[in-house]
């Protein structure tokens, strides 16, 4: 959702939104709503809750549209608002008992070698083939990460926010953001490991 040089001029649309033009708002909701729902679904559970998040986000947008400067794309601006609304909702309810990140990280012997060195993964390189089953496995594994780590991974690796933006949105330091991202990836790797070794995939 980053800005593109060939993107159409949004000035007229934004002006209409600022005037409170219903048609303009409906067109933005229809235009961006589907993708924003997908973003919300990654953070919260269930379609109803995701729809609540998107509704809340559009209310926020409506209240704050006067502050939208046009320095970014409307879609980028809405994306941030949805992410914030989803995080607010998560904060309100603590999730059921979670595993500790320590239990998901690789374990080492006293000499610094890994305790379990499995086989190499069959998938190599970043151009991975994605089968439906594998996609479900990856989504379930992300869901199993402890919330503080899951949120950083979603923001950085999936929603593609940069480190500073992620730190700001989560109100943690840049260093904490980096540490959590790395640990989240290590934990995700451990969770995927049994599915990815040798012929297991």
């Amino acid at each position: 959702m980053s800005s593109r040089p060939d993107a159409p001029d949004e000035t007229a649309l934004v002006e209409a939104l600022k005037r409170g033009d219903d048609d303009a708002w409906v067109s933005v909701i229809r235009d961006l709503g589907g993708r924003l729902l997908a973003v919300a679904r990654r953070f919260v559970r269930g379609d109803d809750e995701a729809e609540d998040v998107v509704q809340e986000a559009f209310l926020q947008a409506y209240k704050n549209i006067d502050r939208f400067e046009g320095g970014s794309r409307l879609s980028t601006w809405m994306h941030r608002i949805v992410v914030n609304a989803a995080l607010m909702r998560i904060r309100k309810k603590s999730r059921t008992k979670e595993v500790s990140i320590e239990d998901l990280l690789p374990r080492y012997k006293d000499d610094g070698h890994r305790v379990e060195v499995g086989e190499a993964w069959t998938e190599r390189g970043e151009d991975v083939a994605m089968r439906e089953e594998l996609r479900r496995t990856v989504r379930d594994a992300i869901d199993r990460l402890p919330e503080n780590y899951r949120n950083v991974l979603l923001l950085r690796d999936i929603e593609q926010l940069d480190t500073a933006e992620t730190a700001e949105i989560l109100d943690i330091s840049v260093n904490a953001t980096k540490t959590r991202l790395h640990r989240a990836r290590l934990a995700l790797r451990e969770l995927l490991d049994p599915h990815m070794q040798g012929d297991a995939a």
Partner: protein
Amino acid sequence: MTCKEFIDFLMAYLDGELEAETARVFEEHMKLCPPCVDYLESYKVTVALGRKACADEDAEVPPEVPEGLVKAILAARRKES
């Protein structure tokens, strides 16, 4: 450098944030330790898999927004204003 240190430094290495000397030792470890090379590869695949799983999901999102949601947003907006 131990395997544990290698794994601790992985992200910084991939982001190009290691100091030159540490990066050199890191690469030295790679020459001596095939399992760590596999690990580095699987770490990159992990990041790519997460990204791809969610990107595919986005591609499948129906373009239409549920009509009920459009109405709910407009109704909530009127209540606020």
